[in-house]
């Protein structure tokens, strides 16, 4: 077998190595020389500058010759780029090793300062790089788009759980909070609140005044509850307060009294002053073996109804009929 002349080798295989029968490098292609940089290749032992990492056990010129035609993985010097190669025997008993950059090595190819001219015209390495760049462009665009959609989703979700008039949570937002509390081990209380006298203000002063009154009510509720308490507006003049980590009846009764007092302060609506109050009913998670938010709300609502029946401006605790404790029913103080 004859070896192509050097110019032909350099054009077809710009990363080749030609070695003598002992494995000493005779010449290399121009691109391999460029990648090697300062590192002198000619005259050196091929396997010491281009050790074969796979398949294992190729340590001598004879091993290399025996691996003719097989795919080899090599590295150019310490920390150099990973290369794939194939060896063929030449007519003079020498070896011709053709090399290409491995796929992982392409991600660091910019450090090698190569251009399309450094590859054989038939080599698809530049095309591979083109596709890799297109892929990374598209994946960064996809990541950006996903982040933008995720932002929009979070905003939409927050809006879906918010009452636009008062910016309090709506029923949906409340359900999410209760579902979370139900999963937790800590006790909590749910207070239903219905305004007394709201309809009269709405009828007398109009819807705009009614809306202003609801906004003022929301702000007062936030003012007299704790920072971690959750205030929601679930209907026209119906509010719900959730008290995480709280099941002490005396504390809850105090807060209920403060809420009623705060809501009874007159509200200035333009040239008018409105006076309202509120009735409240509370259910405690500790009264249930397995607290179910829907049932707690229904029970708190029943207690609220009892408060209304009892003369309004009052707070009533739900009284478990078959509670796990034999605690005596407690009624809140009158508002």
């Amino acid at each position, binding site marked *: 077998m004859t070896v192509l002349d050097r110019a032909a080798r350099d054009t077809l295989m710009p990363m080749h190595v030609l070695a003598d029968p002992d494995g000493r490098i005779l010449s290399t292609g121009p691109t391999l020389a460029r990648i090697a940089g300062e590192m002198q290749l000619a005259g050196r032992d091929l396997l010491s500058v281009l050790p074969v990492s796979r398949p294992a056990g190729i340590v001598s010129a004879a091993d290399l010759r025996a691996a003719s035609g097989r795919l080899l993985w090599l590295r150019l010097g310490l920390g150099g780029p990973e290369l794939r190669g194939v060896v063929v025997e030449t007519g003079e008993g020498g070896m011709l090793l053709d090399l290409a950059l491995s796929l992982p090595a392409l991600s660091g190819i910019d450090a090698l300062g190569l251009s399309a001219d450094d590859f054989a015209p038939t080599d698809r390495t*530049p095309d591979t790089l083109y596709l*890799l760049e297109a892929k990374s*462009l598209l994946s960064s665009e996809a990541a950006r*788009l996903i982040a933008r959609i995720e932002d929009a989703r979070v905003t939409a979700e927050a809006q879906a759980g918010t009452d636009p008039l008062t910016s309090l949570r709506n029923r949906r937002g409340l359900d999410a909070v209760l579902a979370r509390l139900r999963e937790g081990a800590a006790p909590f209380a749910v207070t239903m609140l219905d305004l007394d006298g709201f309809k009269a203000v709405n009828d007398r002063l109009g819807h705009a005044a009614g809306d202003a009154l609801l906004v003022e009510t929301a702000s007062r509720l936030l003012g007299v509850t704790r920072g971690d308490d959750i205030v929601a507006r679930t209907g026209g003049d119906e509010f719900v307060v959730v008290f995480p980590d709280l099941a002490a009846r005396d504390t809850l009764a105090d807060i209920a009294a403060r809420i009623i007092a705060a809501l009874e302060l007159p509200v200035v609506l333009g040239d008018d002053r409105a006076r309202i109050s509120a009735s409240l009913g509370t259910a405690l998670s500790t009264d249930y073996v397995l607290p179910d938010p829907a049932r707690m709300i229904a029970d708190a609502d029943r207690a609220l109804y009892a408060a209304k029946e009892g003369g309004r401006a009052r707070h009533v605790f739900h009284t478990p009929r078959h509670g796990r404790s034999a605690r005596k029913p407690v009624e809140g103080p009158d508002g």
Partner: protein
Amino acid sequence: MRGLLGRAMQAFVIESYGAALWDDIARRCDVPGGGFEILLSYPPDLLDRVEDEVARRIDRTRAEMLEDLGVHIVARPHGDAVRRLLRFSGARFGDFIENLPDLPERLRLAVPGLDLPPLDLAAVAPPGAGWIVTPGDPRIVPLLVGVLRAMADEHGTLALVEATRDRRGIDVSLLCAEHGAARDFALGGGLRGAAR
């Protein structure tokens, strides 16, 4: 394709005329979310409206605006992803032009859904003096004029790039192949900074 062209127009307006003008154009034309996404498709009439509005606001004809846009796509100072992808089409300007018929398929491989019309190429005698490029859809002639002009600059080549008299093709005359320095283009240079 539509998202890509829309985004190119958005970048062109923001980088050449300011973000306030773009916000106004996006609002008037009802661009969803105030900006184009490369990966999304948009109704063709939206893009038409935006093209008209951009041209009107920068006081150019639509063809002039599209030429400027073509130049901007290649020569824009920030984010040179498209420029780099185009540079892969040939090591010299002449190679780039000779490879134009492959460009639509190359771009489709890079960006699925990017449907550039076919590009026909005819050489002008004597060999190497110039070419006539004829796209399958004459509407992209002005944009392509801008892109080819900027690619000539990119390669440091002095070339005359003009729409043909019937405005259905592009006349490329090579005046001086190595007129100035080509812009840097190291293979793989777009891979490290790609996450930006």
